[in-house]
C-alpha cells in the first residue's frame, strides 16, 4: 500500500501523470472513491501523460470511451451498471490486450470479475464541514493497492514516482 496526498486538482493530475509514466499495454487501473473525489480529474492527468490531446470527460453514460495516445486509453465507468455480467460484457480484459490500458471508475466494484492483476487507486477526502478548517476541501488522499505480479514488479518504481506526494509507508 502506498499513501499519497495532493493539495488540489492540478496536483492530482500530476500524480496521475506520474503513474501513467509507468503503465504498459494490458494494464488495468481501478479508481475508487465517492462522487466528487476526483476520479475523472485523475484520468485527465493520466491521459495527458499518455499524449492524449482530446478532452477527457466522465464516461458515466457512455460506459466506456477509447482515447488514442502513446497507448490507447480505455476510460470506463461502471457506476450505471447493476450486474457483474454487464462488466464482463464490456470486454475490458480483451480490449487492453491490444496495446491499450484501462482506467475504470468505480472499478473496485468490478474486482470480482477482473483478472487479479491491477492497480487500485482509492481517493478520499475530508467531507466533514465541522472538521479543522486548516484542511482545505481540495485536499485528496490516495491509497494505492497493488494486486498481481505485473504491478508488483513496479512497486519500487511507483514509490519513487510518487515521492513528491507520499505521506506514509
Amino acid at each position, binding site marked *: 500500500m502506498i499513501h499519497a496526498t495532493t493539495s488540489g486538482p492540478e496536483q492530482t493530475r500530476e500524480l496521475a501523470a506520474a503513474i501513467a509514466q509507468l503503465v504498459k499495454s494490458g494494464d488495468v487501473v481501478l479508481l475508487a472513491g465517492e462522487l466528487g473525489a476526483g476520479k475523472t480529474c485523475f484520468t485527465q492527468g493520466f491521459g495527458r501523460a499518455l499524449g492524449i490531446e482530446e478532452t477527457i470527460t466522465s464516461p458515466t453514460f457512455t460506459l466506456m470511451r477509447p482515447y488514442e495516445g502513446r497507448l490507447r486509453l480505455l476510460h470506463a465507468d*461502471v457506476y450505471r451498471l447493476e*450486474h*457483474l455480467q454487464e*462488466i*464482463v460484457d464490456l470486454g475490458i480484459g480483451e480490449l487492453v*490486450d491490444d496495446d491499450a490500458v484501462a482506467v475504470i471508475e468505480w472499478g473496485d466494484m468490478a474486482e470480482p470479475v477482473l483478472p487479479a492483476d491491477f492497480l487500485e487507486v482509492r481517493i478520499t477526502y475530508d467531507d466533514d464541514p465541522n472538521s479543522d478548517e486548516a484542511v482545505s476541501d481540495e485536499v485528496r488522499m490516495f491509497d494505492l493497492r497493488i494486486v498481481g505480479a505485473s504491478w508488483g514488479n513496479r512497486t519500487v518504481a511507483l514509490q519513487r514516482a510518487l515521492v513528491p506526494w507520499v505521506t506514509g509507508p
Partner: protein
Amino acid sequence: MIVLGIESATAQVGCALGGVEGVFASFHASRGRRHAETLVPAIEFVCRSARIEFREISVVAVDIGPGLFTGLRVGIATAKAMASALRVPVIGMSSLDLLAHQVRHSPRLIVPVIDARRGEVFSATYRHVQGGIQRLSDPKVGTAAELANDLRATNSESLLIGDGAIRYASELAEEGAKVEIGSVGMQWPSAGDLVELAHPRALREEFIQPSELQPLYLRKADAEINWEQRSA
C-alpha cells in the same frame, strides 16, 4: 433454402451466403478490428455478388462464441436485427465447432483453441466420427499452461487449431508433447463452414427465434454488483 452466415467471434469478421449447392459468396477480414463498421457493408456485398436479395434469405446463422465480447456483440446484434426485420429464424453455432470442422478428417484428437486474451484460451476436444466430428468435452476457458497439462494427461496425438493455438504454440507444443499446431490458414472460424453446417439444420427446422439467441459465455458472473456494501 438460403442461409446467411455471420461470423465475428474472433479478431476476424466474416459473412457468407449459401444453400444446398454450397457457399455462394463469402467475405472475411482478419485485420483492423472494425467489426461493427465492416459487417453490414460486407453482408450487402456478398448478397450483391451472389445476386441474392435480402428477402430470399430463409435463415440467419451466427457464431455465438466462445470468443471476444466486442466481436460477438456485433455479430449477434446484427443477426438478431436482420432476422427480426426479415421475419426469419436464427441458428446459433459454436466457434469451437466451426474450427474443429475444418480438420474433421484428422484421426487425431482435435482441439480448437481460441485466444481469449490476457493469457487465457477457449478450448474443447473433438474426434472424428463417421460423417463428421463429435465433441468430447465441454468448452472451457483457462490458461494455455492448463490446457497443455490437460493434453499431456490424455496422452493422445492431438491437433490444435485456432489463433490461440498459434499464439501459445511454444507453451502448448513443448518438447515431448504429442501436439501439432494447425496452420495459420485455418486459424479463424469460417463463415462458409457456418453456412454449410447450418443448412442441414435449417432443413430440419433446428432453429430458434431471434429473441432467444444468446452468446455462449464461459466467463460467467451471476451476481449483482454489491453497491450497498460499498456505501456501508
